């Protein structure tokens, strides 16, 4: 598509100098959100601070519910979304851990809530800085989990998230992950759409999907509706629970298609897209060694990979943008014929592998010949990922390719001792 066909060409998009949190608050302001319910936690807090300013200045119609805990934040979002509202919350680390009980309920009730997760390490030891252990905590919660690489993508993805969540083929909550401090607190010049363009992209206020219920003749809105009362959250025993859980899985199957579609629609609107929306790959076509990463660290890896490629070395990067549902087939086809894969996990699974490693290796199992794989655990508790560390990792993997085997399946990047 030529540049001319972009509906809002770059020069028509206002430039904002904001950090990732402010970018999200701005995106939420434009997304006609009805209820925002949140509790302060570093490094997410700026999102709700900034949003409270919009509320205090009368710039939004949103009801802001400053709850007394993250558990209540997600609970209020469930109530609000069930009552037909577009609902948003934001959290990090311990906050996510506290609310996780309701995180599972939100997805099982098929409520299109959007949550920003400013990723931060889980206690103990207590730490406020970035890693992905909080996102890993909710990987089986039935949410769509998107990871962003920079502030611009964080803004774009937040708006996209509402459209993905509310799509009738999906009706699942979406988590937008941004690396704590690396993105949440880092200023970047971003391009934003005018308010009406965002409203149009989302189709205005939330439109509640309809469903068939045996005691109503017509399709009825999937909400707490005095016109057509429904029961939400009933007791579901061995005779139905299993089927309902499988229905969640079925909905998840529709997600990649919708994410790709929304990515393309966004491109038509703004001229920006992130790979195919699911995976943002670089240099993989001819690569012998591929690095798989998520979040802001992928930017560092890309710059290093670029330098290697300039020297003629066949390296590639697969940035997983959509971590849940995990794009198994796409990963498998991208990594077919690769000699070695370094999977970068910004989270740890004591007694097992990192979550990303497990998913990537599961994707590879059905291949006839398997590449060597190594789990690189890096950046825990906010430890910086320097280009030197990426080089060290790549050199190690090159050595593995030479010897044809990997001695340690898990390596810790940038740890002392």
């Amino acid at each position, binding site marked *: 598509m030529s540049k001319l066909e972009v509906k809002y060409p770059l020069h028509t998009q206002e430039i904002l100098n904001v950090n990732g949190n402010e970018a999200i608050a701005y995106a939420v302001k434009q997304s006609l959100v009805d209820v925002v319910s949140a509790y302060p936690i570093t490094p997410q807090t700026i999102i709700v601070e900034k949003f409270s300013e919009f509320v205090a200045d009368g710039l939004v119609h949103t009801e802001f519910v400053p709850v007394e805990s993250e558990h*209540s934040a997600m*609970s209020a979002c469930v*109530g609000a979304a*069930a009552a037909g509202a577009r609902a948003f919350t934001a959290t990090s680390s311990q906050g996510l851990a506290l609310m996780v009980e309701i995180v599972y309920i939100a997805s099982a009730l098929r409520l299109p809530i959007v949550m920003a997760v400013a990723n931060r390490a889980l206690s103990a030891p207590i730490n406020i800085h970035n890693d992905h252990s909080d996102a890993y905590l909710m990987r089986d919660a039935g949410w769509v989990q998107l990871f962003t690489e920079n502030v611009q993508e964080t803004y774009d993805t937040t708006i996209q998230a509402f459209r993905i969540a509310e799509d009738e083929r999906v009706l699942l909550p979406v988590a937008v992950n941004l690396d704590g401090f690396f993105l949440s607190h880092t200023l970047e010049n971003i391009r934003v759409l005018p308010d009406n363009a965002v409203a149009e992209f989302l189709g205005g206020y939330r439109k509640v999907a309809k469903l068939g219920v045996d005691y109503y003749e017509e399709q009825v809105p999937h909400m707490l509706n005095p016109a057509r009362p429904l029961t939400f959250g*009933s007791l579901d025993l061995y005779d139905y629970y299993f089927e309902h859980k499988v229905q969640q899985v079925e909905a998840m199957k529709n997600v990649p298609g919708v994410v790709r579609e929304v990515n393309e629609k966004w491109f038509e609107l703004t001229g920006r897209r992130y790979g195919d929306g699911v995976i943002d790959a670089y240099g993989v076509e001819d690569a012998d060694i591929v690095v798989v990463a998520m979040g802001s660290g992928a930017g560092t890896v890309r710059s290093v990979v670029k330098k290697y490629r300039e020297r003629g070395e066949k390296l590639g990067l697969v940035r997983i943008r959509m971590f849940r549902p995990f794009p198994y087939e796409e990963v498998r086809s991208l990594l077919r014929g690769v000699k070695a894969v370094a999977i970068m996990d910004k989270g740890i699974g004591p007694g097992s592998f990192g979550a990303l490693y497990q998913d990537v290796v599961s994707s590879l199992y059905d291949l006839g010949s398997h590449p060597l794989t190594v789990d690189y655990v890096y950046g825990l508790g906010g430890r910086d990922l320097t280009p030197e560390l990426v080089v060290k990792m790549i050199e190690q993997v090159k050595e593995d390719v030479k010897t044809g085997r990997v001695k340690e399946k898990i390596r810790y990047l940038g740890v002392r001792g």
Partner: protein
Amino acid sequence: MVVKTIPEFPVKKGEPAYKIWMFEPGWKGEIPLNFNLRQVAEQKRSALLPGHRLCAGCAAPIVVKLASFAFRGPTIVVNATGCLEVATTIFPYTSWAVPWIHNAFENAASTASGVESAIKALKKTGRLPYEHVDVVVFAGDGGTFDIGFQALSGMAERGHDVLYILYDNEAYMNTGIQRSGGTPKYAATTTSPAGEVIPGKPESKKPIADIMVAHRIPYVATATPAHWMDFMKKVRKGLEANGPAFIHSLSSCDRGWRHDNAISIEVLRRAVDTCYFPLWEWTPEVGYMLTDRSLVIARNPSLKQPIEKFVEVQGRFRHLMKPENKEKLKELQEYVDKVWEDLLKRASNAPK
């Protein structure tokens, strides 16, 4: 488009009962509060329909029915996990004729906060097809005194326009009669059994309604389904209050209290007659006011029954009737008397 009639009032013969709770968009008005028992019965205007699986003798469905007789119009119900929730919504069935949501155990109040906020946002943007939608919570003592207390306190502090009705059966009945913050002193439960050394729960009941008074919300009351007219009036007042309202209803549980299932209402009547559970209401303007039977007792103290009258019909207090526990019973009486005396001092309509 304004629909002025109450939907099918009274219910049409042969029509499914849930239809009386379907308010077409644009519905305006207010269902009148009706104390004519015959009419109330004929209207069948209960939010809880027959077919639920609560135990015979359980007072919880009576609490819900009486409350819903006092609903004003479109109402959304939020239910904490508990007997009421599990026994009324076993998929694919539901006994609820009104929009109803169960989220989890400890978050009924915060879920209701979200529902109420959504209603406000929809109204602000012209998307609410009604003048008003009431939000009512039903939660048990576990979900209110204990695990749900934080959410409740937060909801009260933030001033959400929600009526929270606590049906207090004084233990975790759904999991099999374990002690809660609402269990009275010396009651035997499965985690505070009456043993050789410890005679039931050693601690007293948390004064939850007084704690809600301390939040200075617009309306707090105590009630029992045995005092049905008082109960319905209080529910309507709670709905009319401009902000959070809290009603603490005692709710007998024949399985947990170990009484005959035919006397559930009688036990509740005795709870009030002995001043174990006085009936009152509180508003920030007037303070404490005794109501119904408790006001009668305040005016004529000779009507006050000894605590034995409440204790003797319940197996959970059986050990208190043994001669060696005479002192314990006396202690319980003294505690009840003290709380009652305190209330008399505070109640503006109690004879001084």
